């Protein structure tokens, strides 16, 4: 039925034009046959030829107006509008001779309509200098055929005047023979011409007015320039001149496009500059680098070395003192440890970094544990160690020189959230150092005596999100931090180093908290293997968040809870889920604690959100690496046992 409907529509569109054509041709033919011979004899012999010429003019313009392309603009290619379609505003302003003209986005043709262009709903295409869609010619009237339409109107008006007046003259001279054929036909022709003369004359006059004002029918009807200035008018004479004398613009559609092959083969020439132009590059990680544009730019090589430079870890630094690490670990245990996190490679490094590097291993494993949930990658790959994407700060602090390869990654991950929050903001990280500092005393307090911390965490991170993020984000601040922390280890005393580390941990924790918030949305994701068990098990339903949503600002529960949740487990996300989850998780696992910080601090907290998030099979690595941290024997059921030496600690924490 749709086809028949379309056919009916199409057939009905031809009725006016057919009627017009029939009337025009028919009437004129009758006029020529029945009236013109008498006119030629009575009035002048030039009447028929002039009438004929006029009639041919009418016909020609009518034909051109009917069949000529009005200036149809072809639809835009996909390449042109692929950016616009998604975010394009509906209107765009351009300045035309000092007048702001609004360009509207054409949803059908996928481009911003040029000035004076409009979309014809009947023909379903945009027409340049759109006037109107004329049913009598069944065509759009636009830039290319407006002249012919106007001339058609003019000529038709004159023709109708001639026909009507000639017929009238004939009738007046043959009043006694009105019933004769000639008179009857002439009477009919006169009636028709007289009947249609009024609207045609009106339309002609209307378009004369439009031409004098330099407007189109569309603009007149929509009242675009009623009160304002028309930037497209050239004055009355100029408009008439433009109407008659302007060149005919080309047809845009159905053009014979000759494709002459132009061979494009690399290598390509590059522009050479005479001077070095400093380029400020804002990378997607928010780094702003000032590059000197060399004389010979290598298009694809430019960014590579830069990125590689950024990725290149800082030079190795002397490994921290194991004792230092112990103290640090102790401090860490009471705190959120999630920050440093390293990726899958960390576990590899930890794997080969055994023996003397046990402390860092443990530390890292602790941090890794804390970030276990964050990194689905590790889970997926069955890594015992949690591969985590988060800041490498703590790991940096622990063994800055140990994980140079991870620095970039950890830095990336650590700043992934920051980059999300403030992409391209190079100052974001330094600024974010503020809030973590706020927790410094709290952490210290906790670290020292495991007492309840004051204050509240600011954010909950989404470890999943962090893990899920591409590790492309590098920020110089991360590098700076990384580069700085090893330096601190070199010269500072143990306590100072510990405090510095704590501060960095707080920053990392801050970030992790934020990540947690994001991870909430991802907890239910089946693809996130890491979250399968913990998230579904421990997180309450209301903790589920739409992807991309942020966690609320600092949880309202006490700092202790925050410490528990963020410091180690940090993945619990929001407060309520954190608290509930932590409580559940905490109570779930047996609490064995001999570690100073953990046992006192964590147990007293009563909650640790994260342990439950860890799959039970994530047993810590065998405690091959001797732990420098005092740890209580941990139950094997501890969900989060990423490192043998850290098992119990993790147990404490998670519980």
């Amino acid at each position, binding site marked *: 039925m749709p086809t028949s409907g379309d056919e009916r529509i199409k057939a009905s569109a031809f009725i006016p034009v057919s009627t017009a054509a029939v009337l025009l041709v028919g009437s004129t033919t009758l006029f020529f046959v029945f009236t013109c011979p008498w006119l030629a004899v009575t009035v002048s012999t030039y009447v028929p030829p002039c009438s004929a010429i006029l009639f*041919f*003019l009418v*016909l*020609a313009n009518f*034909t*051109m107006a009917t069949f000529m392309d009005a200036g149809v*603009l*072809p639809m*835009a*290619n996909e*390449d*042109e509008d692929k950016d616009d379609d998604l975010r394009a505003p509906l209107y765009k302003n*351009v*300045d*035309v*001779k000092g007048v702001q*003209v609004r360009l509207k986005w054409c949803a059908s043709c996928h*481009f911003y309509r*040029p*000035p*004076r262009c409009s979309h014809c709903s009947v023909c379903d295409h945009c027409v*340049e*200098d759109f006037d109107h869609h004329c049913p009598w010619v069944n065509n759009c009237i636009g830039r290319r055929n407006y*002249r*012919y339409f106007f*001339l058609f109107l003019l000529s038709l008006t004159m023709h109708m005047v001639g026909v009507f007046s000639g017929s009238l003259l004939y009738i007046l001279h043959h009043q006694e023979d009105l019933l004769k054929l000639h008179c009857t036909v002439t009477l009919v022709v006169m009636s028709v011409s007289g009947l249609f003369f009024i609207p045609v004359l009106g339309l002609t006059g209307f378009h004369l007015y439009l031409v004098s004002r330099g407007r189109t029918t569309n603009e007149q009807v929509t009242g675009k320039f009623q009160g304002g200035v028309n930037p*497209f008018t050239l004055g009355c004479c100029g408009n008439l*001149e*433009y109407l008659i*004398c*302007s*060149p*005919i*613009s*080309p047809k*845009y559609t159905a*053009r014979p*496009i*000759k494709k*002459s092959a*132009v*061979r*494009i*083969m*690399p*290598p*390509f*020439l*590059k*522009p*050479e500059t005479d001077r070095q132009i400093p380029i400020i590059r804002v990378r997607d990680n928010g780094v702003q680098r000032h590059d000197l544009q060399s004389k010979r*730019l*290598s*298009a*694809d*090589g*430019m960014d590579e070395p830069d990125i590689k430079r950024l*990725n290149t870890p800082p030079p190795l630094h002397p490994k921290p003192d194991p004792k230092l690490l112990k103290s640090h670990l102790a401090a860490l245990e009471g705190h959120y440890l999630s920050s440093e996190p390293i990726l899958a490679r960390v576990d590899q490094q930890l794997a080969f970094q055994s023996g003397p590097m046990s402390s860092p291993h443990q530390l890292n494993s602790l941090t890794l544990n804390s970030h276990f949930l964050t990194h689905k990658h590790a889970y997926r790959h069955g890594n015992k160690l949690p591969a985590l994407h988060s800041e490498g700060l703590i790991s940096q602090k622990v063994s800055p020189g140990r994980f140079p390869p991870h620095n970039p990654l950890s830095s990336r991950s650590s700043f992934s959230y920051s980059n999300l929050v403030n992409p391209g903001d190079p100052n974001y990280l330094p600024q974010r150092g503020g809030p973590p500092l706020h927790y410094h005393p709290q952490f210290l307090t906790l670290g020292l005596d495991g007492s309840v911390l004051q204050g509240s965490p600011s954010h909950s991170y989404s470890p999943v999100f962090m893990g899920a993020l*591409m590790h*492309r984000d590098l920020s110089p601040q991360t590098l700076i931090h990384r580069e700085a922390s090893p330096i601190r280890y070199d010269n500072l005393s143990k306590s100072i180093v510990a405090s510095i580390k704590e501060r960095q941990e707080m920053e990392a924790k801050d970030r992790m908290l934020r990540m947690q918030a994001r991870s909430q949305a991802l907890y239910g994701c089946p693809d996130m293997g890491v979250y399968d068990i913990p998230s579904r098990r421990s997180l309450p339903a209301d903790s589920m968040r739409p992807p991309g949503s942020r966690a609320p600002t600092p949880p309202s529960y006490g700092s202790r809870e925050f410490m528990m949740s963020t410091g180690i487990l940090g993945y619990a996300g929001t407060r309520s889920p954190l608290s509930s989850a932590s409580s559940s998780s905490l109570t779930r696992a047996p609490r064995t604690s001999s570690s100073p910080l953990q046992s006192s601090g964590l147990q007293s907290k009563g909650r640790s959100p994260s342990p439950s998030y860890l799959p039970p099979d994530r047993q810590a690595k065998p405690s091959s690496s001797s732990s420098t941290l005092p740890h209580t024997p941990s139950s094997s059921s501890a969900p989060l046992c990423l490192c043998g030496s850290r098992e119990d600690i993790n147990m404490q924490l998670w519980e």
Partner: protein
Amino acid sequence: MATEFHNLQELRQSPSLATKVFIQRDYSEGTVCRFQIKFPSELGSRIERTLFEDTVKTLNTYYAEAEKVGGQSYMEGCLACATAYFIFFCMETRYEKVLKKISGYIQEQNEKIYAPRGLLLTDPVERGMRVIEVSVFEDRGSSGSSPSSNVSSGISQR
């Protein structure tokens, strides 16, 4: 196999389209066909500014010549009207002649200037005179490590 290998080599060597840059119309002087001479930043590393601007300015000159309302266009219109527009079947309009010149000019520019730089201009008439489309091709031949860099980048992202 050998043929496939050869084709693969060719595919690897033939540049692929990286992006397209569109030069929009300049409507500051009305609906006269004129394109913006503003140098797009995406081409900054591919072609000299002066070369590109010269091309656009020349195109604008051509279009201004095509759309000039003067004696020639008036005579053309009168002739067409006098012949009941049958003249259009016999000869092409002035605008069409200039468009052919423009097409030749773009072709020449592509061959001499843009193709060696991995760019390709598209005749605006194919886009309804709304934009000048500049196709930017990937530059793989500048360094032999480009395929390896692609591989390395792919690995790093994993």
